[in-house]
């Protein structure tokens, strides 16, 4: 079964680190947000209590900001500067293109049963949204988090009442990110029929060629026309490694489901 390379090892490592750090941030953040509830106290106890939770939240948050910085450098290095700016708006780029809007509408039409399935290229519009949302999310959460962790220092440069506002921005953005990943990202990435039970592309770095022909025909055809397809074919990961990928992937999904379901279930206790 032929497979086509989709992600480089560096991109897979970025995603792996992002998964682990985001899960830590989600757990420690919800532990602090829900610390007035039994569930919140239980979560905090896993990290050594309320104050230790904040310390971990702070250092992992800094790690995520550094990770974002390194990723931006990586992207800048990977840009083909000789063909700039055409290279960043090409079909291999994750920046939005005008074709994406048309494909999104056509895809919606296909979902409703009134249009044909669009011929996606390498990246679908939903994948670009997920990728760019991380930039927005880490930046917003990172800036507000750094300020909230050092309120006395930053109140030299802004009124103290801005801290009230930033705390709510931090909370709402974090809840948005956690729920989005737990529901929309996991469902589209893993749980829909095409990818069920799990899309290992981000772990293995490759996708099945026939599946790619079906879901991303424009990408495969383009590679065939450019003569790159045969150089992009790779073999499947060994079975034991795939088992590890499945176990790891399901563990992450279960953790996020656990957090989201309990967060929703404990809202009443938190507000009451």
């Amino acid at each position: 079964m032929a497979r086509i390379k989709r992600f480089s090892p560096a991109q897979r490592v970025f995603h792996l680190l992002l998964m682990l750090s985001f899960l830590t941030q989600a757990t420690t953040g919800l532990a602090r947000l829900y610390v007035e509830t039994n569930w919140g106290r239980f979560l905090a106890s896993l990290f050594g209590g309320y104050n230790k939770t904040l310390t971990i939240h702070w250092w992992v948050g800094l790690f995520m900001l550094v990770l974002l910085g390194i990723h931006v450098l990586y992207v800048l290095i990977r840009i083909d500067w000789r063909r700039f700016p055409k290279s960043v708006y090409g079909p291999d780029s994750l920046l939005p293109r005008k074709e994406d809007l048309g494909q999104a509408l056509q895809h919606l039409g296909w979902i409703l049963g009134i249009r044909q399935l669009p011929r996606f290229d390498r990246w679908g519009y939903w994948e670009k949204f997920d990728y760019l949302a991380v930039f927005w999310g880490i930046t917003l959460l990172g800036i507000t988090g750094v300020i909230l962790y050092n309120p006395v220092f930053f109140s030299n440069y802004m009124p103290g009442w801005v801290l009230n506002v930033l705390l709510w921005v931090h909370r709402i953005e974090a809840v948005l990110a956690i729920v989005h990943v737990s529901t929309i990202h996991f469902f589209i990435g893993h749980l829909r029929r095409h990818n069920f039970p799990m899309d290992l592309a981000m772990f293995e770095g490759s996708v099945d060629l026939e599946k790619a022909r079906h879901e991303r025909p424009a990408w495969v055809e383009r590679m065939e026309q450019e003569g790159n397809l045969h150089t992009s074919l790779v073999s499947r990961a060994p079975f034991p490694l795939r088992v590890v990928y499945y176990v790891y992937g399901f563990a992450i999904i279960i953790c996020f489901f656990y957090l989201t379901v309990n967060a929703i279930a404990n809202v009443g206790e938190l507000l009451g």
Partner: protein
Amino acid sequence: MNKHVSKQIMFSGYYSLDKACHWRDPLVHKGSVWLGGAFCLAVAILLIAILFPDLAWAQTEVSSKSYRYSERELASRSYETHEVRPRTYTVSVRGGIPQKEAVTLSPIAEKVRRRQYLADSHWGLKFYERLTCTKCHPQQARNLHYIRAKITCRQCHGPEPIAGLKHYYSKMNPRRRHAFVCAKCHEGANRSFASYVNHEPSPAALNTRQSFPLLFYVFWMMAAIAVGTFAAFLPHAFMWGLREFLPDNFLSSLEKPFARGRKQDGPD
């Protein structure tokens, strides 16, 4: 000899005491002068502390030539000027609420607002000694300091009598709140930091648009982004998931029976 002295102590007390205690010893005499001086000084300090409590309280802070706070001030640099008892100018707020604030208030609101300027903000309240803070201020208990850090009301607002927030000598007065209250836990707290709204109103409440507009608008903007994201993508993901259970030629297979039906209906 000893018997003789003890007899003298018993029967002619003053002389014998003088002798027995070495009252006229020059070294002892000098020490007692120092002791007496120290006692007088202590009494004087005590009297000053009793008679001038405001002054004594204010002097617990370094208030002149202090660079510690100046370098932390945001913009006003007014800390040194207003820190201690005012010098030559009169305090306009002591007598009550400034006229410009009182004009637009209802009688009850005016009464409440006036209390913010009193030295004892709870002065004259019936059965006050039997009440707890949260009995009359239930909303004020919902703040992170109380809920998370278990900081009680009195730890910030002080013991009785609790001065109004705007009373000139109140330590909760915005002029010195950062130094007398916030800095107890937040080392280096400045005046800007003290403007953090500890008793934050509910950001979703309509009243907050008046009392804390930025919080209100930012909260609803963020909520709209979150709700908008889920409103767009949750149904999208759900319907996408459903659609994948249907074959790709689902639409054309639906059209065929309809087309056949139309054909059959046609000649009639």
